[in-house]
């Protein structure tokens, strides 16, 4: 399936009239947008807007009903298995086994991805997230912030090109937020990001592109430099319906 790979500098995510329906419910309704490689997209929207569904479709966990989506140059349906090696997910759930140690968790997922020279890679990542001193401790004993760091290490194991972040900041204490900020800053340069966030300030401070969704539709898909701050706040208020400073 390598013939579909595109040259660098093109779009990392291409979504064309993506629709996801079940019965009368439309979780995604004719969603279209592009995201260039290396960009950081923040997805905003009220609960039930279709943000999670969008990420599920883009990460191959759900098939679209209509329309197409390509991530890292691969179709989410036809090239699903191949695509999975090119994407990573950092969720508010740690996605780690509590009864395995930090190193065991990473080694397990390294095997699942078929990462070559796994033990070196695991050590390298544990050092990067500053957990190498706790590598033998069970994940069960980790604090929320440590879990999130390890979860980032897990997501980066197979050197994905596109990273999906599903409300990664929820439930983090300020210290953990700092660490997560630092980590994202470190890997910012060579990854494309798609982040779902309820935290408007955080989302805006990180992103280069923004997407507002409501009722499964795209309300706004813009490069952040093209968006006027007060217009955006206005739009956000009217769709998301929450108080915005």
């Amino acid at each position, binding site marked *: 399936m390598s013939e579909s790979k595109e040259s660098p500098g093109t779009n990392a995510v291409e979504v064309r009239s993506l629709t996801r329906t079940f019965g009368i419910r439309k979780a995604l309704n004719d969603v279209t947008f592009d995201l260039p490689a290396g960009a950081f997209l923040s997805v905003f929207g009220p609960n039930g807007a279709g943000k999670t569904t969008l990420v599920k479709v883009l990460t191959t966990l759900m098939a679209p009903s209509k329309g197409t989506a390509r991530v890292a140059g691969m179709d989410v349906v*036809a090239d*699903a*298995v191949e695509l999975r090696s090119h994407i990573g997910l950092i*969720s508010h759930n*740690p996605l780690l086994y509590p009864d395995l140690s930090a190193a*065991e968790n990473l080694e*397990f*997922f390294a095997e699942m991805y078929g990462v070559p020279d796994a033990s070196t890679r695991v050590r390298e990542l544990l050092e990067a997230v500053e957990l190498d001193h706790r590598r033998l401790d069970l994940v069960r004993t980790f604090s929320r912030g440590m879990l999130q760091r390890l979860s980032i290490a897990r997501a980066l194991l197979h050197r994905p090109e596109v990273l999906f972040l599903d409300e990664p900041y929820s439930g983090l204490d300020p210290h953990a937020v700092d660490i997560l900020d630092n980590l994202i800053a470190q890997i910012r340069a060579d990854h494309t990001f798609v982040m779902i966030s309820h935290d408007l300030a955080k989302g805006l401070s990180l992103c280069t592109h923004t997407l507002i969704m409501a009722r499964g539709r795209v309300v706004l898909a813009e490069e952040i430099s093209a968006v006027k701050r007060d217009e955006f706040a206005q739009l956000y208020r009217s769709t998301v319906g929450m108080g915005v400073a």
Partner: protein
Amino acid sequence: MAGTHANPRGLSVRQFKAILKKDIVMELRTKEMITSMGIYALLTMVIYQIALSQAGTAFDPRNIAAGLLWLAFVFTSMLGLNRSLVHEKDQGCLEALLLSPVDRPVIFFAKATGNLIFLLIVQALTIPVFAFLFLQQGTYAGDLWMIPLVLTMGSIGIAGVGTLLATMSVNTKGKDFVLAVLFVPIMYPLLLAAVSATTAAVLGGDGYVQQFWSGMGLMAAFDAIMLLAAFALYEFIVGA
């Protein structure tokens, strides 16, 4: 849902081993499944004692030994199956597994194999206790080597279909109850054949070898058909 692109065979084997190893390491560390299943089996023995307490001395428990054993196994295995899938759901780990480039049947076979191993361990522990408690009087009339065979054949079906059904029930309200409601009727034919074959092995008697092998044959047929169905359906279930 999955792509047409298949993984290289080597990777699938690696993934299978990794999942199986992870389950075994976790079990050895927590001993959650084996202790809970083992204690549950012991409790069943107490219940049997109560059930048989009024049967009188003339009653030979050997006649219903096979039935009692499989009854214990059915209930303990439901407990274990539930546990093994709850592990995966707990922290969203199943989602992480699904995100990796793994063919879904690999997950199924790895989980089912893990469950099979734990079932067999619990059975190996339960049987001597059962024999010690209930089968002291009377002699063992069948062939001893038949017992592990029939246990393995039965456990393959329980682990295979059970893993599929538990993957469903773990996502429902009232997990354990739903698993029981789905599991018992589906397992009915397997258990019937298993009890028949086990009875032949325990009691001996006229034509017991033939009864044993016909039971084994039926169990093998059930295992083959149901594993195939579970294998085909797992992808849909695990992705939903």
